[in-house]
Every structure is written in structure tokens, then in C-alpha cells.
């Protein structure tokens, strides 16, 4: 188990040291929320209805931005090939890396979401569901986005390509995430959506790391 502990500690240290990188997705999220707030016009009620879906889409885009740089750094400095070389099970290393990365981006977005919700006139009873759905959704988005990022890490300008690949895979998480916050905002119980989000997260947690490990091994040889 020592490799797992060492890997987790290393990735937390790197994520913490490279927190300047983690500011980009969060800054992007905050900025776009403000832009939406400005451009939506004065009608509070309309904005409140659309806001949950928008906050979710912005969180999705911000996560995608962060995930793409995630593997690129390890690929370019050669630590990724050392990991592959030693035939270590990638499952652990990938999970550790994504968890450290999520703490610095996804978790921050989730914490900011009530503030963003308030700014976009989301009714008060909708805020807990918005934050709750993001708490379950952003890790799933990170895991799924990581597959696309891992497939394109060996290519120079993989960024846009990773987004094109990940977009359709994000659809279920986006639907149930936005659905949960919209349902709560309109007073209905978001229980069904939360159950689905939990199921999607569980599936992503168990399956995605294998796909990411395989994708990293393949993109190593581009």
C-alpha cells in the first residue's frame, strides 16, 4: 500500500503547490456567473428559473478546463512514463491524482455554488440542492473528463479535442445535476435526481480509473 500513500501525498503536495493552476477554473466559474448575471437583464423570476442549469453548465466547463492540464504536466515532465514503466497498478495513482485535483477545483466550485446561486436569483430553498448536486456531480465530471484528458494528453493541442470527446459523456450527469437543482428550486423533492447522481458517481468511481489508466498507457506511445 506504500505506493498508494506516497502517490496520494505527492499529488496533494503537487496540487497544493500548483494551486495557482487551480485558480483558473474557479476564476472562470466566478467570472462567467457574473457575466450571466449582468447579461440576463432585470427579470429576477426568469433568471432564478434558468440559473441552476446555468450554474451546472459553468461548473462542467470549469471542471473540464482543470482536468485537461492535469495529466499534461506529468506527461511533459516524464513522471507519467516512470509510473507506467514500473507497471504499478494505475488505478490507485489515477484515483489519488483525481481526488487531489477535485479537492482543489470541484470542491471549491461546490462551495462557491450557493453564492453563485444567490447572485443569479435562485430561490433560497433551491440552494442546498444546487450545492448537494454539485458535491455529487463534480467528482463524476472530473472522473469522466479525465478519460478524455488522458486520451488526448499525448497530443499538442488536445484541449479542445478533450472537450469534444467528453461533452456527450457528461450529458447524464448534467441532466440529473441540473434536474436536481431545478426540481428543488421549484419546490419538488430532488430525491430521484440525487439517487441517480449517486449511482453515476459510483459507476464513474469504479470504471473510469481503468479507462483512464488504459488511455494513459495508449497515449504514452502517440
Amino acid at each position: 500500500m506504500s505506493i498508494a500513500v506516497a502517490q496520494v501525498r505527492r499529488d496533494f503536495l503537487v496540487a497544493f503547490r500548483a494551486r495557482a493552476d487551480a485558480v483558473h477554473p474557479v476564476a472562470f466559474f466566478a467570472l462567467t456567473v457574473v457575466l450571466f448575471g449582468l447579461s440576463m437583464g432585470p427579470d429576477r423570476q426568469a433568471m432564478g428559473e434558468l440559473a441552476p442549469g446555468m450554474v451546472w453548465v459553468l461548473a462542467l466547463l470549469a471542471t473540464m478546463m482543470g482536468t485537461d492540464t492535469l495529466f499534461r504536466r506529468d506527461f511533459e515532465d516524464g513522471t507519467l512514463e516512470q509510473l507506467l514503466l514500473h507497471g504499478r497498478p494505475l488505478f490507485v495513482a489515477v484515483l489519488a491524482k483525481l481526488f487531489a485535483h477535485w479537492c482543489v477545483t470541484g470542491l471549491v466550485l461546490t462551495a462557491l455554488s450557493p453564492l453563485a446561486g444567490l447572485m443569479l436569483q435562485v430561490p433560497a430553498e433551491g440552494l442546498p440542492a444546487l450545492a448537494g448536486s454539485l458535491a455529487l456531480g463534480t467528482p463524476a465530471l472530473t472522473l469522466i473528463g479525465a478519460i478524455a484528458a488522458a486520451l488526448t494528453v499525448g497530443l499538442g493541442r488536445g484541449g479542445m479535442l478533450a472537450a469534444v470527446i467528453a461533452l456527450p459523456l457528461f450529458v447524464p450527469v448534467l441532466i440529473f445535476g441540473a434536474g436536481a437543482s431545478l426540481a428543488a428550486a421549484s419546490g419538488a423533492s430532488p430525491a430521484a435526481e440525487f439517487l441517480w447522481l449517486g449511482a453515476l458517481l459510483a459507476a464513474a468511481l469504479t470504471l473510469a480509473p481503468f479507462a483512464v489508466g488504459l488511455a494513459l498507457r495508449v497515449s504514452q506511445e502517440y
Partner: protein
Amino acid sequence: MADPSNEPLLCTRGLACGVNGRTLFEGVELTLSAGDLVEVRGPNGSGKTTLLRCIAGLFTEEAGSVRVRPPERPLYLGHKPGVNPMLSALENIRWYLALEGLSRDADVCRDAVDTVGLGRAGRVPCATLSAGQRRRAALARLVVTEAPLWLLDEPFSALDDAGQDLVRSLIDRHRDAGGAVLCATHEPVGLPDAGRLELPG
């Protein structure tokens, strides 16, 4: 199964690698036993790096076979340093020790960083080091590793004379301890009884 102790450290049979149908090299027969040093020479694009990466398991061969004596995996020093710029040389070597499954006590790491001549520079993030120093941080692996087979891809690049002597001494120490080294270089390593593998252009 042959008795593992006298099985060669590395044995390739009819090894061929290519990219998009264009063959880089073929029919490479290579056997490395304890104490061997083989230089891989050849013009640019002859596939020196590809050969090393193929043996390291980072490149799928087109034909032939590669047999690295288990259980240890080979050490691979490539163009990419394999050192995370956010971490210091010390932190990188701690991580590398865990990668090889060795105990990560502090003085082994400190000793390795000092041996490669980094000293205090070994404790600051590698991003702030010069290319030569970062190369030395990568060389720290050669001090701590227990991998019997070394695959070095142009180990002398970006190193001053002292650095190059350091590499030679590390290779000597490794060969005396029963290890083998496959080294891709443009100029001779300058060590006694080095074998030679010429890859056609």
C-alpha cells in the same frame, strides 16, 4: 523455466520497431548479462530512443520479443527528466523510492541528492533549477535504484564535465554490483570493454 539467477538480464530476439509502416530497425539480437555495458550508436532517427523505450515497455514492438529478467523493472532515464518541477529533488526521489517499492527513509534520499552534487539546491522546487541541475536531480535515481538493468538515453546531455564523470562512476559502480547498462549515446561513453550495437540509419 531456466534457473533465474543465470538468466541474462536482457534478451531480445529479432526485435523490430516501426512507425506507420516505416520500419526503424529490425532483427535486433541483444543479450545483456551481469556487468555488461552496451552502447547503442546510430545517426539521428535510427531508432535509438525507440529501442530503449521498447525494452522499457513504453513502445509496442512490431516483431520479435523482449525479455527483461523479472522481478525488477528496468530503470529508464529518457529525454524527459522524470522529475516533477513543483517538487524538490528530495521529494521526487522519495516518490521514486516508493515507485520501486523501496523503503523511503530520509537519509537515503539526502545522501542521493548530495551524491549527485545538488546539496541545498536539492531542497527547492526543481522548476527553479537550471537544466543541468534538473538533469542531476534525475540522476539521483541512479544512486538509489536497485533495478539491475539500466536504460540510459543520452545520459551526458546538459551535463558539465563533473556531471559526466559522475555518470561514469555511477555506471562503474552499477556494473561492479552485477548490473547491466544499455546506453544510447552520440559520443563514446569512455569506459573499458563497452559492447556496441550499431543501428543503421
